[in-house]
């Protein structure tokens, strides 16, 4: 195996990816699944995890494109170059591009996933028999609405299991119409169109309007390829027309005549000589899963291997039962290590005592016995936190009986872990939410349906959150935001309430829906807090940062941006 010069790799193990667009060759669900399985090839043998993002910038941005597709390395039409990817890093680095002039399959011919019908989205079974006749493609036979369909078992007459095949009359993908079907005819730049078109686009993708007038409504989607559609050429998406005439001779099947490369092609009208409309005939195609697994290897930091059986060998070959070669495993584990726990070597040093926080000089000093803390309790190894809040100007991260804190300045050191019970003995291990009242400096802690109020070392509680006027069906308070003096917003589920801290009551007019007031943030955030003039909503390991004008101005990792791991 080889790695890129400088052993380029991600500096974090929780790698994100985003699928920017889809190929018309396969249903989006099959493409999603192929990519997920391709990532799993690598996560199975390393500590890497892969999380899919649906917006924003991910580490690995995945896209399909043709020829010149926005980077300095254009694709070359069908066959030849299949895909490329960039080694780890910022911007385009880490991204993976797939040539959409290829016929993307799972390596063994068209994969036709059905929709509707009675087969629960199963794939077509080719060949299948219908009315005593055998079909090896989708057909419109037996229907009056011109919708192509197929049987999902070998014998429709016996099993009666069927579904509808990809068709622009059934749905579109990507675009801005939410998958609505094409409407024919439609108007585009004053012209009327009766079928999908590539007009108005430079990337060769076929599209249609999903209303009768694109000029007016601007609603569109891309057309899925039918299983009988030709690949590439100049009439992608159209079926072969048999027979067709080429150089005066009639052809009843695909031919390689006229080409020096031996590839099979057909005319999509009755006469190539007259119309010059053509495309390549569908073949076995390339396995998106295998090519993606190879490209993701690059995106993780592996260069080409010279072992022919390795996944990272530069040439494509189809493997029915794929398993990762030991060379690929050695390569990726060189970069990221192995899965499973590391063996713990004998430690000649005695266990480290927990760091203790200096106490307030005005408070009577009490001697506390330092309780050893598991040194593996590293904040950077936590995926999520129970709660995050600011106490005395420092950002506090709570998790399972421990907490860490940082002043937040650029060179600030992360301190901890400290045990919660040492500092606030009345509190349980899991804190769902906390805030410091800006007026009284009292600390409010919430866990489940109870809350505690600390004033210095004095504690009040636990008390039920119902005492604050919150409804009794709330399971926990997940976030707290200071709103001016004496007012705090408390978040739970998809709602929030405004607490009058002085009166210890919820203001009238609440609850309100979080997504109505705070647009663009997850409405199932598990931590909400105020920090350095911004509002943070955390979900999983990510945060959405909102400015004072309630605009999301940043989405990032808690671990890297706030903890500075």
């Amino acid at each position, binding site marked *: 195996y080889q790695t*890129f010069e400088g052993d380029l790799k991600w500096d974090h193990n929780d790698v994100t990816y985003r699928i920017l667009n889809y190929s018309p060759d396969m249903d989006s669900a099959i493409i999603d699944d192929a990519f997920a399985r391709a990532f799993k090839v690598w996560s199975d043998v390393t500590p890497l995890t892969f999380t899919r993002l649906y917006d924003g910038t991910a580490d690995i941005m995945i896209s399909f494109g043709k020829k010149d597709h926005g980077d300095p390395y254009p694709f070359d039409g069908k066959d030849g170059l299949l895909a490329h990817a960039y080694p780890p890093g910022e911007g385009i680095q880490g991204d993976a591009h797939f040539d959409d002039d290829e016929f993307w399959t799972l390596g063994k011919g068209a994969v036709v996933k059905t929709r509707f019908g009675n087969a629960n989205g199963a794939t077509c079974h080719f060949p299948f028999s219908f009315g005593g006749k055998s079909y090896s493609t989708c057909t419109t036979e037996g229907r009056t609405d011109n919708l192509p369909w197929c049987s999902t078992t070998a014998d429709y007459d016996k099993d009666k299991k069927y579904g509808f095949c990809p068709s622009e009359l059934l749905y579109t993908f990507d675009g801005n119409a939410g998958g609505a079907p094409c409407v024919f005819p439609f108007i585009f730049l004053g012209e009327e169109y009766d079928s999908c078109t590539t007009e108005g686009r430079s990337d060769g993708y076929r599209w249609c309007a999903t209303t009768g007038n694109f000029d007016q409504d601007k609603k569109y989607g891309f057309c899925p390829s039918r299983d009988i559609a030709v690949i590439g050429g*100049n009439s992608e998406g159209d079926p072969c027309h048999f027979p067709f005439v080429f150089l005066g001779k009639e052809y009843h099947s695909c031919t390689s005549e*006229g080409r020096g*490369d031996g590839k099979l092609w057909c005319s999509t009208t009755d006469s190539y000589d007259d119309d010059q409309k053509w495309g390549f005939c569908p073949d076995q195609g390339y396995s998106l899963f295998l090519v993606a697994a190879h490209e993701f290897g690059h995106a993780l930091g592996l260069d080409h291997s*010279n072992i022919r059986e390795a996944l990272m060998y*530069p*040439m*494509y070959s189809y493997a029915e039962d794929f398993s990762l070669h030991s060379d690929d495993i050695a390569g990726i584990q060189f970069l990221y290590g192995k899965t499973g726990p590391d063996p713990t070597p004998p430690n000649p040093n005695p266990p480290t005592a927990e760091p203790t926080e200096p106490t307030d000089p005005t408070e009577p000093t009490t001697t506390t016995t330092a309780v050893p803390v598991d040194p593996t309790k590293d904040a950077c190894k936590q995926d999520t936190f129970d709660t995050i809040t600011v106490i005395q100007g420092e950002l506090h991260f709570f998790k399972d009986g421990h907490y860490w804190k940082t002043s937040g300045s650029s060179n600030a050191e992360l301190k901890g872990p400290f045990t919660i019970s040492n500092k606030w003995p009345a509190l349980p291990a899991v804190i769902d939410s906390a805030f410091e009242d800006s007026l009284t400096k009292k600390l409010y802690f919430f866990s489940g349906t109870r809350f505690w109020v600390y004033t210095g070392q004095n504690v009040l509680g636990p008390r039920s959150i119902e005492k604050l006027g919150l409804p009794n069906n709330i399971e926990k308070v997940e976030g707290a935001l200071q709103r001016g003096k004496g007012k705090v917003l408390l978040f739970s589920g998809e709602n929030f309430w405004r607490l009058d801290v002085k009166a210890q009551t919820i203001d009238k007019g609440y609850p309100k829906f979080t997504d109505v007031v705070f647009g663009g943030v997850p409405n199932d955030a598990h931590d909400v807090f105020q920090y350095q003039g911004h509002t943070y909503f955390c979900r999983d390991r990510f945060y959405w940062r909102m400015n004072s004008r309630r605009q999301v101005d940043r989405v990032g990792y808690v671990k890297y941006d706030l903890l500075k791991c």
Partner: protein
Amino acid sequence: WSLPLKSVFVTFPGDIPKNLTDSELAENYLKNFGYMNTVERSGFQSMVSTAKALKRMQRQLGLEETGVLNKETLDAMKKPRCGVPDVAN
């Protein structure tokens, strides 16, 4: 004896012409995948001889290292592949 077919090659609209001679194909391949250009330690970029580049390519792809454009090498060059260069530049 039947007469051999006279193949006529046409230029298909929208197709990227790939009717290259073997040596043109090899030259393109060796350039595109990093075998021809190398950067010296000084940072100076130099061209490697075709034979040397071919040997390098044959070694990288696990072929017999002849430095000659033989059928096995040509076949390898015609196979579908990843666009990432084999030799970093």
